[in-house]
């Protein structure tokens, strides 16, 4: 049976890990190769690298970082940030990514999802959705969360699936960095209305939050700062998931 995954996320700017509250006020949290290697040794099931660089210089460091991480870790590597076309996706995959995460560019041009999925396989095509609560629902935000759109997040997840995305990385943007737990109702809605795997992201502070997200229907849980700060390890989290009846990779 398929195991539930625990995925540390490294937000990268100019080749360094940064992490902040609601994607802003970034602070340096270390070297991505060292961190990825440490998390892999702790039992991480996958690593996500999100390039949040605002500058071209920062972006230039991205491929070198991917290659360096790939050389060291023997687990899957998902890379997102700044993928606008097939050539961009191909460059990331050739550098050593196993999957690319599309976000703003897919909102602007949904057909990009289909093109990348058909070219590289659905398993390599992750749709990253940043969702913020508006009234009774959730709306998609783009450009690292800085820009609101009128697009309904649950409908966008369904559309991305129909366009042949292979996986959904679902971030509750307004919970990111708040330590208040994942957005469970959003997870429930997306997980129950799609048939592709869903990764929960945004707001995790404890293993308990992860148990809740998995019970809400997520297939995997992603977190950043709780691992970077050394508050907990991937191994500790997996032990608690196991104690709560979740099947995880030993």
């Amino acid at each position, binding site marked *: *049976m*398929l*195991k*539930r*995954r625990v995925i540390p996320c490294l937000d990268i700017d100019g080749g360094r890990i940064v992490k902040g509250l609601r994607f802003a006020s970034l602070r340096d949290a270390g070297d991505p190769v060292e961190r990825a290697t440490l998390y*892999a040794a702790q039992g991480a*099931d996958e690593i996500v690298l999100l390039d949040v660089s605002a500058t071209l210089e920062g972006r230039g460091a991205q491929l070198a970082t991917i*290659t360096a991480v*790939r*050389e060291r870790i*023997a*687990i*899957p*590597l998902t890379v997102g940030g700044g993928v606008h076309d097939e050539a961009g996706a191909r460059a990331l*995959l*050739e*550098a*050593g*990514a*196993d*999957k690319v995460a599309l976000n703003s560019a897919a909102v602007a041009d949904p057909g990009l999802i289909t093109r990348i999925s*058909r*070219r*590289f*396989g*659905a*398993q*390599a095509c992750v749709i990253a959705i940043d969702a913020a609560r508006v009234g009774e629902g959730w709306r998609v935000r783009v450009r690292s969360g800085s820009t609101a759109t009128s697009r309904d997040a649950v409908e966008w997840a369904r559309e991305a699936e129909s366009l042949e995305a*292979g*996986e959904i990385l679902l971030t509750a943007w307004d919970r990111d960095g708040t330590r208040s737990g994942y957005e469970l109702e959003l997870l429930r809605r997306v997980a129950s209305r799609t*048939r*592709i*795997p869903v990764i929960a992201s945004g707001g995790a502070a404890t293993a308990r939050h992860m148990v809740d997200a998995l019970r809400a229907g997520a*297939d*995997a849980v992603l977190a950043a700062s709780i691992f970077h700060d050394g508050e907990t390890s991937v191994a500790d989290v997996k032990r608690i998931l196991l104690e709560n009846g979740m099947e995880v*990779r*030993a």
Partner: protein
Amino acid sequence: MNSGPEIVVVRTGVANTAAVLAALRRAGTRPVLSDRASDVRDAGAVVLPGVGSFGSGMRALADLGLDAALRDRVRSSRPTLAICLGMQLLGLESAESPGVEGVGAIDARFERFDGDVRVPQIGWNDVEVEPAARILAGGDAYFANSFRTLDAPQGWTCGWATHGVAFVAGFERGAIVACQFHPELSGAYGAQLIERWIDAARREVFAC
């Protein structure tokens, strides 16, 4: 001096080979990428990686004349490791690309996962193997696939996993191994499998 057999990783243009090359280097070998039919036919050991669709993968192999080279390799039992789509390409056909003929070295047909499971299957699943397995082993392996075969190919020793239904996780015969999962992404479990395959390939090459 490279202590193992020459390992050629097939470059089809649709597969991302970085993870496979990194895993082979971590295993102490010096793999080379090639898309030449003579290399793929004659190398001491060959890895056929694969991502993308069955149709585009077969088209890439056929354009380079690699389909016949791979068929010859498998029929003459030369050390070969086929991964994910690479395993499917060795078969007869896949529902992913109706009408496209596979390499045809293995009597296997692939169909999409159905039932109450998420597709693609993405993540770690536990593999169990038949007692005769020498390279495949029990443990958690990383899968990323939408298509699978449910029938053990004749004359091969199989590994199995379950995603809704029991499906073939891999099969082996001598120094030929095909994995539906990604050993190069399967942590220590995968690294050990790759090392056992390299050992088997080395014995095969030096026995010739």
